[in-house]
């Protein structure tokens, strides 16, 4: 009997202790391993730097932030188990996941346990399911596809355009939107194809593109496949211009595709490295030998977003945080963030970029 009371007492103490004295656990999740691991690496570097900076300034509501890292390898099943682990660890905020196909199933778990999320996944479904806990700091594929498709229709008038995807939630969603945007401008795609991601041989697709006289490929998917397609197109004597989405920001594309990468266009939010207000942070990253490309600054911004929302709400309770996020406006390294009723970024502002000599920049008009 005495033992039981003692145990109950310790349990209660532990619970109180957890509430009152622990640091705030915040988490990131994404492909830390697997073929898209370089994106996970960017997220981790951005988040680590942000947390170090926030903690150096005294943390959030007087308490330090501690980072948890989840690895979903872009596998939807693993994403759900990562989500469950994170829920058990009692995190108060999740920046992730990265692949839309991981974010969608995982967000149901976080929603059930009332954990706030900020994601960079771009598939419209992420915010279209009426979940209150999820906010998107990136744009959506339909906005992205509209910009990409519109640009292709205007710039490559009279040329044959194929639309290809990799069957992933992100890739297919983006490709569908690009096709829709093209058709909206009266351009009928010459080919609509899907490939299997993770293979090495796309010569079948390349020959098909070549025989159809395609010069431009609008592609929904990840950079690894684009690099292979470009290389094989070059081998087959086909000059191909590719229009992709935000995943083409990865420098691996250039190492893998070589000079052919200069034919890659893509849409991405305005480059945070060009944001004058973020110049200090950019310099800090570069001093630490981290190039703040791709998702680095987004991860940094996500952590700032949480810190500011918590300060405004004066609480890290889910209800208060959610209210603060929905109503507020936040100053981050990627610019001002505010959200609409669905949780989408109000001002995503996609731009068309082009790779040129191993660097990307806004496309020359």
């Amino acid at each position, binding site marked *: 009997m005495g033992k039981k009371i003692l145990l109950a007492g310790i349990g209660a103490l532990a619970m109180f202790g957890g509430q009152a004295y622990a640091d705030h656990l915040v988490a990131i999740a994404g492909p830390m*391993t*697997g*073929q898209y*691991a*370089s994106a996970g*690496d960017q997220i981790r570097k951005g988040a680590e730097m942000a947390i170090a900076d926030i903690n150096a300034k005294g943390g959030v509501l007087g308490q330090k932030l501690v980072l948890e890292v989840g690895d979903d390898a872009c596998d939807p099943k693993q994403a759900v188990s990562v989500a469950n682990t994170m829920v058990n660890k009692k995190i108060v905020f999740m920046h992730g996941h990265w692949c839309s196909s991981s974010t969608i199933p995982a967000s149901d778990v976080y929603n059930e346990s009332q954990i706030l999320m900020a994601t960079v996944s771009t598939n419209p479904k992420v915010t279209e399911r009426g979940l209150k806990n999820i906010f998107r700091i990136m744009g959506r594929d339909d906005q992205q596809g509209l910009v990409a498709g519109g640009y292709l229709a205007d710039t490559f008038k009279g040329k044959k355009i194929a639309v290809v995807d990799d*069957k992933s939630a992100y890739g297919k969603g983006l490709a569908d939107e690009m096709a829709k945007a093209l058709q909206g401008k009266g351009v009928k795609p010459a080919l609509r*194809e*899907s*490939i*299997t991601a*993770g*293979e*090495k*041989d796309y*010569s*079948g*697709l390349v*020959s*098909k593109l*070549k*025989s159809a*006289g395609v010069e431009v490929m609008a592609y929904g998917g990840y950079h*690894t496949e684009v*690099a*292979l397609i470009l*290389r*094989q197109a*070059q*081998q*087959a*004597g086909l000059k191909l211009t590719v229009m992709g989405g935000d995943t083409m920001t990865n420098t*691996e594309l250039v*190492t*893998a*595709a*070589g000079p052919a990468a200069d034919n890659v266009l893509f849409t991405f939010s305005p480059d945070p490295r060009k944001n004058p207000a973020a110049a200090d942070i950019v310099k800090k990253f570069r001093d630490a030998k981290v190039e703040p490309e791709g998702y680095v600054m987004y991860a940094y911004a996500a952590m700032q977003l949480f810190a500011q929302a918590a300060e405004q709400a004066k609480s890290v309770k889910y209800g208060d945080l959610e209210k603060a996020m929905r109503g507020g406006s936040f100053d981050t390294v990627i610019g001002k963030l505010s959200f609409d009723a669905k949780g989408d970024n109000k001002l995503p502002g996609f731009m068309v970029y082009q790779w040129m000599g191993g660097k990307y920049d806004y496309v020359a008009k």
Partner: protein
Amino acid sequence: MALALQQLINGLTLGAVYGLIAIGYTMVYGIIGMINFAHGDIYMVSAFIAVTGFTLLTAFGVTSVPFALLVVLIVAVLFTSVYGWAVERLAYRPLRGSTRLAPLISAIGMSIFLQNMVQLTQGARVKPIPPMITGGIDVLTTDGFTARLSYSQILIVLVTVALLAAFTWLITRTSFGRQQRACEQDRTMTALLGIDVDRTISLTFMLGASLAAVAGVMVTMYYGVVDFYIGFVAGIKAFTAAVLGGIGSLPGAMLGGLIIGLIEAFWSNYLSAEYKDVATFSILILVLMFRPSGLLGRPEVEKV
């Protein structure tokens, strides 16, 4: 016409690579009756050795492509066969004589181990090498489409043919080949005749690994991009090729590889690239329904 020719070329090149890997599966199955699931990862390891080799040679200022290719090929075959030997010695030999499932599970474990080892030591990032052999011959032009046979495709097919010739000679004409075939038929009897069965099995693994090594080098040269995960897809396809041709049969493995390569090329051209894998596996199911031991496989006869 030119388009069909182009897909024939693409299919044969891809099929040659699948076939080379498939032989490793089929040989191991033939001799110890297990599927070596780590074989795809052995191929991946050789691709990494090739990338390292090419990068080092470039760093030392070697510019002659044939020389670099030859050196890398030899180095990759040597190192990879050591891997093949080590995998057999560590993961399969201690389990010989236990249940049939034990080495299978051990093989899956070995596959996961190799993938993670390469990921940890080499990083998860894609490792590319710049294109080495560019250019090709325009073979045929019809309806504005030019079929192109690239030099690297010629090289892959030539190397495969040469390798297969050497390999057939090794199995049918040498004393090692005879021992190997004897072990396939009856291991106990072979041991009674004074042949070192363990040694023969080790050599079989090394031989399978060296064929996979050649495939790895060829793929690295042709596609130019390698990551720690390539062994999985290639392994599944090659395993399918081995089963399609009749597992245990060496010509069957090559035939299966070529058939799968051709199906993939033609299907993705005339129908849709989306359902390419569906086509491959449907044909596998169809073949197995009518010929359960594969195209060239012999059914196991159990004597009563």
